[in-house]
């Protein structure tokens, strides 16, 4: 078990640096779209909520799990739609 935790901690470390590196030289104009994009990416919480709901035993757990999936789905779908709308506008600029 401890082995698993250590592996996960290394993942944490590397992922944190990755996040930092990806963002650190970004032009200001992209701050909003990037915030929106990262907002979409943490929508992956949906898969966790699905597992939580799928493993729920009592009615209380089921209700909370259901809410979790609902909220997670909103995060993922809404986050994608907002970001895509915003970024679509940058693409037009490619061909003058």
């Amino acid at each position, binding site marked *: 078990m401890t082995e698993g935790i250590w592996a996960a901690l290394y993942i944490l470390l590397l992922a944190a640096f990755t996040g930092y590196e990806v963002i650190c030289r970004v032009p200001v104009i992209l701050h909003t779209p990037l915030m929106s994009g990262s907002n979409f990416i943490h929508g992956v919480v949906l898969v966790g909520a699905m597992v939580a709901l799928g493993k729920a035993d009592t009615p209380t757990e089921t209700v909370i799990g259901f809410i979790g999936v609902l909220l997670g789905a909103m*995060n993922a779908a809404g986050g994608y739609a907002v970001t895509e709308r915003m970024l679509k506008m940058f693409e037009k600029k490619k061909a003058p």
Partner: protein
Amino acid sequence: MEPIIQITYFLTAFLFIFGLKRMSSPMTARSGIIWAGFAMMFATVVTFFWPGLSHYTLMIIAVVIGSSIAWILAKKVSMKDMPQMIAVYNGMGGGSAAAIACVELLKNEMANTGLAALAVAGGLIGAIAFTGSVIAFAKLQGLMKERPVTFPNQQHINLIVLASSVVLGILLLSIGWGFLVPLFFAAALAFGIMMTLPIGGGDMPVVISLYNALTGLAVGFEGFAMGNAAMIVAGTVVGAAGTLLTLLMAKAMNRSLANVLFGAFGQEVTATEGEIKGSLKPIEIDDAAIMMAYADKVIIIPGYGMAVAQAQHKVRELAETLEKRGITVKYAIHPVAGRMPGHMNVLLAEANVPYEKLFDIEEVNPEFSNTDVSLVIGANDVVNPAAKTNPASPIYGMPILDVDRSKNCLVIKRGKGKGFAGIENELFFKENTRMLYGDAQDVVGKLVQSLKRL
């Protein structure tokens, strides 16, 4: 099925990072979100095959309802309201992470205390991000007052609420009494609300970004607790990227994060403000049009007023009309004009204003002294000279656009009210400043008509 799930999650994590990387450059940005979108779809589908799950019907219902509502709302909402949409969807993610934590804690079957502690931490952070984002949404959407809500001993009371949620979390871990779970979440949810109430509308972008980072972190922690690698990687990447983004935004506004969170910025400023000499001088549309028509160089400074009025298309038309007369037209974009960094760029891009005509603060500031007319469209704090001259001003030290140096200044403004920061703008009272009151779209439209008649 297990290996296929793991492989898919691995690819998901890769594509998220790849997508985020592509999103960090304007040219590849759109493909970035599409890659990430595919990854999300695969991850969701493959999760249905996770071993030992039940409640499939409920799962499908929740996914379908949640994603359709969010999708339709996100497609319908106007561009100016994007910031609060990000806030609300971010809040949903935080709430989802908190819900996961809640189920895990109620089941109380986690392998060891370390994992349980992570579940508690993720639940706490997720719950704070949930209610905090919802309040941020309500403030930006105008469902509640944007001005900071303050009361005596607020910081102390907030601290007590936060401390009690932490203590409840620790008790939960050590004693494991199930009835503590609702108390713990109630305290965390309450803290999210109380933390956001004293923060004014102008600071919301920074706060939303912070809650975005917090949600990422919460998702990462819950990923640990559930042994879900995709969640660990995605959550942590967003947590780190979001934290950095928050600091960059705060820096662009020349504020420290602590100041944003605890400064109760945007309160009515008391007597420290110096008296402003001069008066507000209105001008007729036709006179303003003539002023621009005989200029050599016009700089347009858009602000939140342009976003509210959806005036970006009219503004482009105005610029084109001026250019036909041989006038040089540039746009000066302050990094925090509007409600979020880059808000103006997004709106002007929507109206097909060419990229090359947008200039940021360092590029454009030296040009104001040889500019005949600066046209300020619904911007206020970002052109307020008090940021340079008045150390008592709450925006003192923030870089501003030096509009006051141009030969003439036209200001389109809805009314005589103050900006986000709640302070008077002496630019509006200057000798060579003229005011055009009204809705930005309406006023700019009339300017175009008037120019075409000349």
